[in-house]
Structure formats: structure tokens, C-alpha cells
């Protein structure tokens, strides 16, 4: 039987549509599962108290604050570095062997597994630079890990700013740096923030690098960057793999997962809000 063009087209269309539905369904299922199993255990005490009695009671307050600290510190380290590198690559670097090597290095860095970054961070920051197992060592390690994404996002953002903005400024006697600072960077900033938003989720969710460089099984909210830090993903990992009986710990693990999702969502929303404000001021 010959299928008419219309039938084939409709079939293909539905196939494409179904793949989208599948993605939405998977996301919805994960969210539903975690919410359904985590919500009953969620309470005010759970998010405001430290864990006690081998994590079976109390809450996860230090891990929540630790995760937020870690994300802010990491993005605070990586964002300026990423912008600086991107400005060099997009605005100053000519297409030479050196810049091609730099780009290759960045691309490769993006492909390195996070546990390798963890090991590297342990060697460099924890031991060699003597930061110790600390919030700072973890932040540096994660900053290196997200740097390739950060640089690429910032570079793309710079390239979307029309060349005419640069030429307009240069033609008025602006130096190159002045032109970049006043009539390129402000307009690239929203795009750069988009890149950092993606990184936030990655940093908040990483376990391996933090485990090797700064995570504590149990610690108070860090008082300095040289303290060990509790973070949600590692706490979740411990709860769901090392603690028995599961009947006691699994609900706590689900509640922790739910809180992690909410924290990531909250940080993302904050970044989106910042981007919204910047975009309103510097739209083009």
C-alpha cells in the first residue's frame, strides 16, 4: 500500500512530537517521585537544624548553606576569569597557533570527567597550595571545572554584540579597551549570565570533586573559606549508599534531594532575575 505524502508527514510529525513528550514525561516523573517521597519528611526543622543521631534525626541546614556558599564562591571565582579569557579570545586574540592551542585546551578541559578535576584539585589546592580540605579548595576545583563552559558562553555572548557598536566607539577616538568596556560588555552581559546560570546547576549538583577536596560528612556551617563544608549532593550520596536501615534513611535522602532541587531552582531564579535587570538596562 502506498502511503500518501500527508500520512508520512503526519507520522513523522507525531514521532518528533512524541520524543518531546518523552522528555517532559521523564522530567515530570523524576520531579513527582522526589516530591512524593520527599515531601512527607520535609519540615521546618529539617531545613533549619543540623543532623544528629547519625543523621537519622535533625535536618540538613549546614548542607543547604554549604551548597549555597560553594556555588556563590565558585561562580564568583569562575565568572571574572571566564569573562577575562573570553574578552581576550573574542576581542584581542588573532587567529594564531597559540590561540588555536588555547581553544583546543578549553575544549578538552570541558570533556574531562569531574572526578579527575577532583583529583587534580586534591593535588593542587588541598595539598600543594595547602588550602587543606576546605570550601576554598572545592570552589577553586569546581571553578576550573566550569571554566570552559563559562569561557565559551561569554565568548559567544561577546560575538553576538554587533561589530557596528565597536566601530562606532572606535571611530570616536575610543581606545579598544574603552570601546569594549562601554559599548560591548554591557550588551554581552545578559548572554554571559545565561552561561553562568547553566554552571550554577552543575556546581550545586557535583559530588566527586567536592568529595575529594572539601566535603565533610558532618560539619557546622563554615565560618571561613578554609573550613570543611557539608554539601547537599554528598550528603545525599552518603544517606542513600552508606546508611542503614534504608527504611529510616531513604525518606531523609528523598527530602534532601527535594531540597537540593529547590536550592538549584532558587539559585537559577536569582541569576535569571539578575539577567532580567541587566537586560532591561542594556537591551539592543
Amino acid at each position, binding site marked *: 500500500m502506498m502511503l500518501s505524502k500527508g500520512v508520512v508527514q503526519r507520522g513523522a510529525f507525531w514521532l518528533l512530537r512524541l520524543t518531546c513528550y518523552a522528555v517532559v514525561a521523564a522530567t515530570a516523573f523524576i520531579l513527582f517521585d522526589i516530591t512524593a517521597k520527599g515531601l512527607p519528611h520535609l519540615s521546618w526543622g529539617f531545613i533549619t537544624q543540623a543532623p544528629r543521631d547519625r543523621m537519622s534525626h535533625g535536618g540538613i541546614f549546614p548542607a543547604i548553606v554549604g551548597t549555597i556558599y560553594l556555588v556563590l564562591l565558585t561562580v564568583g571565582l569562575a565568572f571574572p576569569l571566564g569573562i577575562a579569557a573570553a574578552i581576550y579570545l573574542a576581542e584581542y586574540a588573532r587567529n594564531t597557533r597559540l590561540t588555536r592551542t588555547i581553544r583546543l585546551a578549553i575544549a578538552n578541559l570541558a570533556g574531562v570527567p569531574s572526578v579527575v578535576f577532583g583529583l587534580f584539585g586534591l593535588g593542587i589546592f588541598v595539598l600543594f597550595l595547602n588550602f587543606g580540605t576546605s570550601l576554598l579548595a572545592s570552589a577553586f576545583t569546581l571553578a576550573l571545572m566550569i571554566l570552559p563552559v563559562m569561557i565559551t558562553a561569554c565568548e559567544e555572548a561577546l560575538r553576538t554584540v554587533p561589530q*557596528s557598536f*565597536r*566601530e*562606532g566607539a572606535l*571611530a*570616536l*577616538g575610543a581606545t579598544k579597551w574603552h570601546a569594549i568596556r562601554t559599548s560591548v560588555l554591557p550588551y554581552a552581559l545578559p548572554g554571559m549570565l545565561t552561561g553562568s546560570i547553566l554552571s550554577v546547576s552543575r556546581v550545586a549538583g557535583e559530588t566527586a570533586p567536592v568529595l575529594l577536596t572539601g566535603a565533610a560528612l558532618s560539619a557546622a556551617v563554615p565560618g571561613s573559606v578554609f573550613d570543611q563544608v557539608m554539601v547537599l549532593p554528598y550528603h545525599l550520596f552518603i544517606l542513600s549508599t552508606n546508611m542503614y536501615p534504608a527504611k529510616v534513611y531513604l525518606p531523609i535522602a528523598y527530602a534532601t534531594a527535594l531540597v537540593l532541587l529547590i536550592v538549584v531552582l532558587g539559585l537559577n531564579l536569582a541569576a535569571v532575575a539578575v539577567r532580567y535587570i541587566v537586560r532591561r538596562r542594556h537591551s539592543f
Partner: protein
Amino acid sequence: MAQAIETPGRPDAPGFPFLAGLAGRDPDPEAKDAIKIRVIDLHFFYGRNHALKGITLDIPEHKVTALIGPSGCGKSTFIRCLNRMNDVIEGSRMTGKILLDGEDIALPAADVVNLRRKVGMVFQKANPFPKSIFENVAYGLRVNGIRGKARLAEMIERSLRRAALWDEVKDDLRKPGTSLSGGQQQRLCIARALAVEPEVVLMDEPSSALDPIATAKIEDLIHSLKELYTIVIVTHNMQQAARVSDFTGFFYLGELVEEGPTQKLFTKPVRKQTEDYITGRFG
């Protein structure tokens, strides 16, 4: 534009209807003008592409010099050499001399920032910054270290008046420059360029994206500006070159085929290529 209109009444001259509007300035082609920019044997390369092949041209002070020629003939490349705007193009290379008041600005060591303050530019597509009208004109002033609201306001008003835009925008200088019409945006860009008090203003097809009325305004403006500035304009439009310029250079395939007083070039071109182009036989 209060000049006497003189139609070339020579029966043997190629008769171009648009020459009816050609103002009869510079009746004496031998008259000597002060030379603002002297270009000597300028070559320009985009990678291996030899875009300008030995251009030698004098640009007289307080005159309008128009550069005409078909697309890709090198006229835009040439004008962008005069303020070193081609420096931003990777893999480009330039040889030859460009003397601005006797000083060679084509040298690698030339102070391009200072050069661009003296040689302003208006681009083909109006490119106001996405800032207010006030900030657009203030940009170049701030770059050059001018501070103080009152001082800025005064200079901005003067620039906008010179660009014949003041009356249309004076009520709201806080409006974004990009909210203006195309012609107004281009005049804003002219005001922005004039604000830093350049000596030369380069215009790269300033009205090619504008309607005839906006174009006429820009052309009127060019007439009024040459008292104060030396103007070099690239245009696709031969009628425009005839209307606004004192001198014209015809570019073809990276070479300056012919140059001279506008009226002479349009009525008695020496080279066949020039005649073919201005009579519309190619291009």
C-alpha cells in the same frame, strides 16, 4: 544650497538628466585648494586579495570629495583606510602613505586613537548606541575627557544643531537613540561624530539605507558642513555625488581610474571606463 544652478549646455557633452541639479561650483578646475589629506601609492590587502592598487589622491580642505564606483571597487576600503578603521580586520595589510596635514598616519606606529578623533566617520548603516540621544552624542565627548553636565549639554546641543536634528529631538533627549527614524538615526550619528570636533568627516554611503526625503536632508547637511569640515563621502549614487561634491574620484577594481572636479568628471570624463560608468553602461 543657494548656489547658482548651471546646466552643462555643451551639445557634445554626454547629456545626463541628473546634471540639471549639478551646482556650478569650482568653475576653475585649476584653482588651488589647501590639501588636507594626501594619499600616495596606497595598497591594501585582505589576506591575498589585493583590494586597493596604488591609490594616489589629494583631498582638499573644506571641500566635499565623493568617491564613486561599482560595488566591490574598493571605495569603502579606501575611506576606512583614512581613519585606520580597517585595523580591526584580521589579516589585512596596508602599504603607502597617507599624509594628514603632512603627518603620515599609515605608519604602524601612528596614534590611531588620536587620528580617529580628528577624522570622524559616519557608517553606511546608522549605528547609534542603544543609549539615550544625549548619551549617544556624549559618548565621544566623555571619551575625550569632557565632564560636567552643563558643558556636555551645551556641546551636545551644538552638535545636534549642526546635524540639523536639534529641533526634532530637543524635547526629549532621554529617548533611546534607536527609537528615532532611520534618517534621524543617521543624523544622530553625524551629530555624534561632530561632537568631538573632527577636522575631517568620512561618510560611507550615509544615505544608502534612507528614503529620498531623509537622503535630501543628509545632502543639505553635507552642504552646510563643509564650511567647518573636510568631507569625504562614498556613494553608490552618482546623482548624489554630482549634487553634493566638489571633487569626485571614480574607483574601479581597486584602482582610482579618474579624479577631478565633479562637474568636469561628470561632463567631460577623460577615461572611457568613467564615461561608461556614469552613463550607466555598466556598474
